[in-house]
């Protein structure tokens, strides 16, 4: 094709670039980091999957194993547990993607889905025999 006209940037170029850039920005704005979906896992089975963003009023979930979980608009936490050490409750509210809390005696895990800022955290959960 005879291309002597092609040496300059033309309107089509600008349109394409603008559209693609907009798409890229949109993709990057997909909410990350804020708590959206939480899971409650008891003894390996996911018993609850909760959309935290659609929670209107905070409520409590009493699990069969003696653990009570508090569900709020953008947070989830162990409210109380029959385990004696209370480490699970002490973990506090999970508000970010990737946050987790565990009640080891009751084999219950609550976590917020999504990738947190880290692949893993060291020193997070130790146990009785950590010496």
């Amino acid at each position, binding site marked *: 094709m005879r291309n002597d006209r092609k040496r300059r940037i033309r309107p089509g170029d600008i349109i*394409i670039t603008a559209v693609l850039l907009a798409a890229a920005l949109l993709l990057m704005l997909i909410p990350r980091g804020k708590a959206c979906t939480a899971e409650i896992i008891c003894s390996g089975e996911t018993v609850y999957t909760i959309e935290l963003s659609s929670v209107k009023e905070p409520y409590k979930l009493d699990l069969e194993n003696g653990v009570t979980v508090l569900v709020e608009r953008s947070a989830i936490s162990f409210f109380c547990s029959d385990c004696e050490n209370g480490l699970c409750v*002490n973990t506090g509210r999970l508000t970010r993607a990737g946050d987790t809390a565990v009640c080891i005696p009751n084999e219950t895990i609550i976590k917020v889905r999504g990738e947190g800022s880290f692949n*893993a955290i*060291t020193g997070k*959960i130790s146990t009785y025999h950590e010496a």
Partner: protein
Amino acid sequence: MKKALFSITALFIAVLMLFTGCSAAAVHNEIFAMGSVLSASAYTNDKQAQTLFAGISDAVYGLDKLISPTVENSDVERLNRNGSAELDAKTSKFLYDCVKLCGICGGTLDITLGAATELWGFQTDSPSKPSDEELEEARLHTGIEKFTLNTEKNTAALEEGVRLDPGAFGKGAALDEAYRVLKNAQIPATVTFGGTVLAFGRQPMKKAWKIGIRDPFGTANDCFAELKIENPDKRTGTFISTSGSYEKCFTENGKTYHHILAPDTCMPADSGLVSVTVKSGAGITADALSTACFINGLNAETLQTLGYFHAEAVFVFADGTYYVTEGLRDSFTLSKDCTFTEHVYEE
């Protein structure tokens, strides 16, 4: 013509957006073992991930059944109960590694602390400070020289009243087992177990693993710093272990006691530290060294020991200062809102 252009780009964007709506990049799994929780995240498809998790689970439970002092009839439990026992080859190897580590770490690491830990009651939910006489007696029943291991015959013996507590080594060893499974499968993954993390292989499309170090003054999900771990190839694993006084502590008569006991006094170590993080090429080493460094504190001897193992470490002090060994400084980044200051250390 413009229409065609727009339709192509629109289609394109639609496809891309479809893509990002898809499933998460990693598959997660948690199991409960050794009194703690092991969580694994594998970067592969679901089917392969489940096979991997099953393999890791088997390996970890297998080790637990041999070395846990609380599992009935495990090798270590029988040894503690009867004073002598015949061991599985694996237990024998594990104990040998432990003894070797204790030897290199001088008096700061001791696998025979069983009597002391039982005395303090840290494995129960109501620990309490023992009396001075009880502590004196516990000290008499502690000492690596009171433990005999025969790796040829796979037998072991303990002097009267002496008990093994492999707590400082067990989870690291379990991660070594997980490492073996991962090496076979060659799947990039992170495995977290009781305060120690194994970062295996290379994460797809990313340069390095980002491992957070828990803030000793914050909650379980707060990190004060991050370590960038870059494995050279898909068969290498890096172990990062943290020992801290922030969990498992109790207050009695106004004084707070934590659970990391110094072998010479059988009292909680008092080195001014609240957390030590060690990076090493082996799980049992990282786990043991984080305890040993915590007990010994930041000094020339500790740094020498770390150097011997080609390990690196991060020390956090009770006064809110931190120290990073030279080899780790490039990978270490303090979190944005962390107010810790650098600890001045002079030889």
